[in-house]
């Protein structure tokens, strides 16, 4: 599930991965990568600058997969996932062809709070 949002003028117009899940029986078949490719392709056609997503810091398999697909950690969002205890998220990004200078993926060093994330 995904959407495009943000402002073109501020160069934050981007594709956002709202949720990505594969049924347990159909894992390890490359389906997640395939779905990510589709979202990137559509975002590119919609002239987005980048694609972003949030992922649990503990979800190593997912984080590794996104890295393998060319995503990098843009910033860490503290206690983004509520639970017991709350868990941090990585905000990961990948620049699309419109962002030639890859400005959108320059990492932010300091972690941010969820309320500071648009």
């Amino acid at each position, binding site marked *: 599930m995904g959407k495009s949002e943000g402002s073109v003028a501020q160069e934050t117009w981007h594709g956002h991965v709202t949720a990505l899940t594969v049924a347990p*029986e159909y894992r390890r*078949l*490359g389906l997640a990568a395939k779905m990510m490719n589709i979202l990137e392709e*559509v975002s590119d*056609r919609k002239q987005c600058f980048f694609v972003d997503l949030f992922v649990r810091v503990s*979800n*190593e398999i997912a984080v590794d997969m996104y890295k393998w697909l060319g995503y990098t950690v843009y910033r860490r969002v503290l206690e983004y996932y509520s639970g017991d205890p709350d868990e941090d998220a990585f905000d990961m990004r990948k620049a699309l062809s419109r962002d030639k200078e890859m400005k959108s993926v320059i990492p932010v060093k300091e972690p941010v709070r969820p309320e500071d994330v648009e």
Partner: protein
Amino acid sequence: MASHNHEDAVTERRLKPIYDNLDNGNYKVAMQSADKLLKKHRDLHCAKVLKALALLRLYRVQECETLAMTVVALKPTDEPTLQALSICFREMNKVELIVEIFSNAVKTQPSEEYYTHLFMALVRLEDFKRQQQTAMSLYKLVPKNAFYFWGVISAVMQALNSDNSLGQKMLLPLAERMVEKMIKEEKLEGESEVNLYLMILDLLGKHEKALEVVGGTLGKSLLKSQIPSRDERIAELFFKMQKWDKAYQAFREMLIKSPDNWLYYTRYLTSGFKLRENGWKPPDTGSEENATSHEDCNNTNKEESQTTDYDLPEMAAFISERIANEEEKVREKTGKALRGPYLAQLELLLRLSTQGKLEEGPQAGSIEDVLVRYFGLFADKTCCFSDLTPYLYMVPELERRSCLQRMEELVELKVNDGAMVYATSVKQLQRHLTSLKISRFYGFHDALSSEEKGNLASELIKRYKEGLSFGKGLLDTDLQYSDEYLLMAVHLLVDVWHDTEDESVLWRCLILLKIGHKHSQSSHHIKLLLMRFYCMAGVFTTVPSLYDGLDIKHMQQDTLGYNALKYAKSLGQLSSAGQFYNSTLRFFISGRREVTEYMIASYRFGTYEKIPEFLNFSTKIKHSLHFAHTAIEKKLLDILKESEKEGKSFTEFVRNMEIDPSQGTAEWDKVTDQRDLNIMVSWNPPHRQMSADDKAVSLRQETSWVKLRDYLLRLLAVSIDLQPQTSTHALTESQNNREKNVVDNKGDNYNAKESGKSLLQNFEDLLQACSKDQETRQKFPIQGPPTPLTIEYLDGNLGTVMALSFHLVQESYKINEAVADESSQSIQDSFCKHCEKLKNTLQESLKRSRRGLVRDDGEKRVLDREVLTELTLLTETSVYLVYLLGIACRNLSGLKNKISKRNKKKKNTPKPLPECIGTFQSMVEDIGQIIAGLQTAIRELESNAKSLDKNQLTLTYSRDQSEEFAEGESELWATVSESYQESLKELSELLQSKQELLPNL
């Protein structure tokens, strides 16, 4: 203008504290400050509305409505007042009033904003016709494309929701013309507009025209996001138009680029087979072809080569080519093999096989080879078995064993001198599991004796434990690799249980699943099966946490809720039941509201094609059987527990529920079944899976039960109107106020006597129909849906008890009405008969269910898993009975008073009290005895439950002597004991509190 703005600002400043207080929940303060403001500024409408809103949130609905309506009558046009009224009416669920205020406002102040509000209010009301008119007025005022297309989609929605002919003849062509007008004027701006146009053309079946749009300039310039791609749209259109040759070609080309797209393969094959069926030949393709045929100089040859172009060999060759590409990829190590091409080959064979033309196929006789090859390539994927399911039965029965053997050899798990060899890698383990699943699916497990099944189960449990070592590093959210060994062992044990009726197997399964759950917290398969086993064992305390652990959200409440709905109440855990009903109903109520918000968002963002989808979804959940069932059970539970408590009489309580007895809770002909009945995994052979017929039977069973419960609820509701009205007016003042506030929901032509009579007839007819219908008792596989409580209800004669009680209510009302004159003699006779029958039936029902929790079964002692449900239903019935006897009693005491008054006047010939009064009185006493007996039965069972763990060794028997199992076993018995005690305690307390209400004349 400046002064006007200044005025606005002042007003705004004055109103702000009221808004703040409303936002912060200080409704009383908000009301007071509104009052203060209104003293100074009597015409500040907005303050009035805010006061109304505060009243609403203080549950003073009637006052709120009165006040708000005085403002509506003034036809306000200022923004803050209109906004406040909107909020107020939305919270009151009276969207039609929002429509009214904005329709008034646009008459004097037509603005984009007010029209938009009006439009959105109409969306909430689902008034598509006025939506369309409003959109067009708005477009005239502000010529933005979006507004014009709001009008177009509104016309489409109107068409989709009107009777078909009107939609087809008038509204859709209208929508089509509306778009085409814009196209002519070259005003189309975006993809969503083209998509809407394509949707209209599709609904009209004008695929040719759609093809021109997609392939033409509009498509090229505006269909930018390419989902679905233009090629795919075109191919789909060919397919819809049944231009099989073109569709065949188009999907073929797309498959070259996307060799793993299953939809393309099925379309490709369907088109190819259609061409074959129709004996299609390609048209003469002009000079070039002719030139080559000259060289051949052989006409027959030419024809043959042309027909084969679209024939089987071509399809087979094409698919083989795709497979060859995959093989090359693997050989060159440039990627992993895709499953699509291999499955397409199997699909081709299946289609030939269903036509009985397998021998015509290119691979005749080699289905086994194709299956074994697929197994060899993909058996280590968990999806391999479900991939192969449709194709496995193509292998002739006698060859299945050898087919499986060839697969088993590929697992390379050889038995060494009889000693078991365990899988040495995750991949090998998964291959082994796939072969086991296929073996079960082929029915080879069914062919085993009970002992062999038991042995295989034990082997699988060992493999399960061994396999856990592969998953040591897994996260909590991951599934254990060897979970399926355990699940299959349990499935085998279920077979043993069914074969031998040995109850200890059930408990063994429970312990195994508990262990499985401990090791694999996220496996929903284990959780669902464990839940079902607990429920079958009569244990409910553990279910809510398992259910919550499934993380069931939104729509899943509707699709999966059936796994818990039946048991919550039937196992006597009434508080849990209440919580479960509440969370379910919250989804159905807020879910529908949310969908409306999404629809509004779709209008705003121009995602028109989603609007009918949202409306469909909303309609579906509105008519969901699970929704109706839960809503009815919730009301029945509230009446059961909460009435005649804290000063609220049964009559008053039910009246406040605003049930309309003349209308069913659901529109039965529109009911939808969203239950996902395939959620639990099963590798059983096809004939032992839930078939489509089974599902239909299950739905009918479920519907009958829900209808029975609905009749019961409505009969309870109608009963409160069948008693002397004075008794309902003995209310305190505050109750009286509330009484007035209750909007009487009952229909105009409502007649309690008639309504009661026909409902009772329906109730009795349905009871009888269910008891005669064989279907009522049909059970399903353990992975399927539970059967509703109809069977237990019928066997306990509880429907009869209820029906007799309603007869007593209705007859006593008539007797009282007729003041026991001669005309009511026959009713009195019938009343007396019913009294007798009621007493006897209830007596029998109790006798039937008066058992201990543990019974002897040969040499073993087993737990009686039925008795709790029986007692729960009996308790429920007894409580309703007590309420109803109260009503009958009020009728008869009314009669008694009238007669004694009359006797005072005619001192000489005092009329004796009619016989029915004495009969009733003695019956009530007898019923008091029976209910006391029920109470004793429950308490005895409770003490049985308390000492349950002491008996454990004779209850379970297992060969598994591992520490983990022993630990699981003692934990389990503690849980069982605890849960039964809790259930029985709830029942006992409920009965205790209601027992005292038994009337006395």
